């Protein structure tokens, strides 16, 4: 789950606005400098699709959708097709499922979680990628992304947009007030800097504990760095139990922060009632109620839209530090494009989306990270995003996708249940590591057992 899950209500409203805006959007964006300003001629060998109507379904709303429409406009210009974007609302499975049962699936869908791709592939809804797409994929995408788009050795998906969920955003004023100059590179250093921030009078950590997915991301970063990708994969698939000593270690490490209410804005109780947007707002409020907030690059959107702080001057970012000498973690998730129809149009669009050219258009709009290695870093609009992107590409195959996103929804994706709830209980009572593990294992066993 990511930030947009929290915006369920907004999604519904924007859905209507977006649907109304779709018809005319092709024309609006065709003349846009950003779209046409990209290389005049394309190196891609795309078929002519004059008069064909294509549908792309995705969860995106607002700016995210607007930027993507420019990518589609470029595709229309190159092929002569007419592409429309259909917002699915929050639940893609329900939307696409009903469309398929109704006999008119969209040509291409952007699925917000890798788990959904697996689910769709299992149901036989997806069309395999054509050789020209897989060739491009092999060339420009790390193995981790290719594997995630594959079901039973057949490649289905192209990761178009990804996130980097291993970032700390900090309030530069609070940071300077405390006399800190360098970003911490280890967990110990992070806690020490937290103490310094606390001494300076600003509570260091803002934790959106009201949203369980924030806590699962905290845990996953620590676990990934401390125990390594191999074990991470095992725990993701529930091949090792949550009562494993490695989980004990990670929770104990997390408890060194969660067990210090004086280092958490609002204390434990406050954190449990803080939702994710508020946890960002309170760091960049004036005066700040906290100095640091952990989450993905999408925090930049919250900062820009909800506070007066400017990304790059008032708000800066450093990567999640390494824990116990491990590699600094890079936790990610992403939207994966899949074809639901066999037609020439759908495959051509997939061919376009896998190309660096398509990704570059969205990259230039900002608020977008591409896993495509061929996208030039110079295309990113500012240094902050560029660094985040570099960090992501550099991590290569050590990137891991959000564990809870890959688990059955009952365990990793439901408010008040499973891992979300168990980690909230752990935040409330960080001393009880064993109890938390027992509960996690019980819930995981139940959810994985049912998903079978």
């Amino acid at each position, binding site marked *: 789950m990511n930030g947009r899950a929290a915006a369920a209500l907004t999604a519904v409203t924007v859905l209507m606005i977006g649907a109304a805006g779709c018809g005319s959007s092709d024309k609006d964006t065709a003349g846009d400098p950003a779209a046409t300003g990209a290389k005049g001629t394309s190196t891609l060998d795309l078929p002519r699709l004059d008069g064909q109507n294509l549908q792309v379904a995705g969860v995106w709303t607002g700016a995210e959708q607007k930027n993507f429409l420019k990518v589609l406009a470029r595709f229309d210009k190159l092929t002569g097709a007419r592409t429309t974007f259909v917002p699915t609302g929050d639940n893609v499975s329900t939307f696409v499922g009903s469309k398929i049962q109704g006999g008119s699936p969209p040509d291409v869908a952007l699925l917000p979680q890798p788990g959904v791709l697996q689910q769709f592939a299992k149901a036989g809804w997806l069309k395999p990628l054509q050789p020209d797409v897989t060739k491009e994929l092999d060339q420009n995408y790390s193995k981790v992304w290719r594997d995630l788009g594959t079901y039973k050795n057949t490649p289905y998906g192209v990761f178009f947009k990804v996130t980097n969920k291993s970032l700390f955003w900090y309030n530069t004023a609070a940071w300077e007030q405390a006399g800190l100059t360098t970003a911490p590179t280890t967990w110990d250093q992070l806690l020490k800097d937290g103490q310094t921030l606390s*001494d300076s*009078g600003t*509570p260091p950590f803002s934790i959106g504990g009201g*949203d369980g997915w924030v806590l699962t991301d905290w845990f996953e970063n620590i676990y990934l760095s401390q125990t390594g990708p191999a074990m991470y994969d095992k725990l993701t698939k529930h091949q090792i139990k949550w009562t494993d000593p490695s989980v004990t270690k990670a929770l104990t490490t997390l408890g060194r922060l969660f067990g210090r209410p004086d280092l958490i804005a609002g*204390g434990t*109780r406050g954190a449990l009632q803080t939702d994710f947007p508020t946890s960002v707002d309170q760091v960049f409020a004036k005066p700040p109620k906290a100095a640091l907030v952990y989450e993905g690059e999408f925090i930049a959107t919250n900062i820009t839209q909800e506070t007066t702080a400017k990304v790059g001057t008032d708000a800066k970012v450093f990567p999640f530090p390494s824990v116990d000498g491990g590699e600094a973690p890079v936790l990610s998730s992403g939207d994966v494009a899949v074809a639901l129809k066999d037609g020439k149009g759908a495959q051509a669009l997939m061919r376009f989306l896998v190309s660096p050219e398509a990704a570059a258009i969205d990259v230039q709009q900002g608020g977008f990270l591409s896993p495509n290695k061929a996208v030039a870093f110079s295309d990113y609009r500012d240094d902050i995003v560029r660094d985040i992107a570099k960090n992501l590409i550099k991590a290569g195959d050590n990137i891991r996708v959000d564990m809870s996103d890959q688990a059955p*929804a009952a365990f990793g994706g439901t408010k*008040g249940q499973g891992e979300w709830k168990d980690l909230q209980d752990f935040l409330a009572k960080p001393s009880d590591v064993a109890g938390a593990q027992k509960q996690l294992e019980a819930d995981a066993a139940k959810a994985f057992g049912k998903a079978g």
Partner: protein
Amino acid sequence: MSQTLTPPSPAAPAAAGAPARRTGRTPRGRTWVAAFFLLPALVLLGALVVYPIVWSVVRSLFGPDGFTHFVGLSNYTGVFTDHQTLVAIKNNAIWVVVAPVAATGLGLIFAVLTERIRWGTAFKLVVFMPMAISMLAAGIIFRLVYDQDPGKGVANAMVTGVHDTFFKASAYPGAHPRVAGPGSTLTGPVGGPYTGKAVSPGDGPAALALVGVQPGTLTGATQAAAPGSCPSGALCGTVWLDFQPGGGTPGKIDPGEKALAGVRVEAVRDGRVLATATAAEDGTFTLPASRIGTSPIRLRLPATNFTAQYAGVNWLGPTLVTWSIIGAYVWMWTGFAMVLIAAGLAGIPRELLEAARVDGAKEWQVFRRITVPLLAPVLGVVLVTLVINVLKIFDLVYVIAPGASQQDANVLALQLYLSSFGGGNDQGTGSALAVLLLALVAPAMFLNIKRFRQEKSR
């Protein structure tokens, strides 16, 4: 509101059926006509009520993957052994006992009182107003009302307002000594009290360095200073904020570091407080020689200096959440109860009340012995309607309870939704819960229908 409409509908066909039965002697054609007119109602009832019920019952006998896997009654045993469902059942019991009684009781009080006052109708209108908004909207409103932050949540704004009038907030909440390093002269648990090392009177000035005060709070404070002259045998020192932008030198009073005026300092020996002093404008304090004697003492900063601001009540925490949501429900449905009871009240013969008053009954006695007994049928209807309504409560709980305490606020309808759609994806268990819910609502429904029948026959 729908409950007030639903009970008559099953009754209606029955009532319509009665004449048909009675007219059994009439020619056959008539029966067919009657059946023809009944058909639409029966089809609708069958398609919308009977069919889903039967389907749910059948579905509850199968596993999560659909009708491929027959599991018998194991969904039901699962329901009664699952911890979450047991919590839901317990909460439902609390709801059924508390919410209808509270709403009806308050409604009765409001109805009786507003009957006597001039602006009664206006008052009734206001109390009834919450009925006009949806449960979802009410839920969102109360989510805000119960917000932990007194700046947002009106409930905590009131609680902290009252609390702070009686208990003075401490001057420096959150202030603490440095954890380690040269500036750390005091130790103690988070929040205080903080105790220093043993010092002898006559030793040099004590430096009580504290950190962790919000930068904005000390704008008017003066520069900290070392004590000027110290009477012989006394113990002097300074309490100050050992931090300035950039950090400053720990343990040293740097230029620009502000005094923490008003901090209480205690001199302690063997657990006994010998003397106390309060830091002056420039942060200095003096503990007089006459009180502290000559042997070593410890300096202690009591926790009252640092107690965090009163955070208010944790309305949506695990223990209170159900009660808070019931509060929201009562806010919504008191108006409903009040209006129905007021209507019943209007139907009570005035003469009875007058007669009682003429006979010398006090107002309370009139209320207890005349009004309430006469209102009993109405109260019964309101109560039963609310019980049915409360049994299937869902929206308020779903919206108000935050993720961390959703399970503590769980009710059957919510558990039904969660296990069948919201992540659980087990419609077998969901159907079993639906059947359980139906079984619980049925007696109340039955009671209501019976009551309606009685009223008709009267």
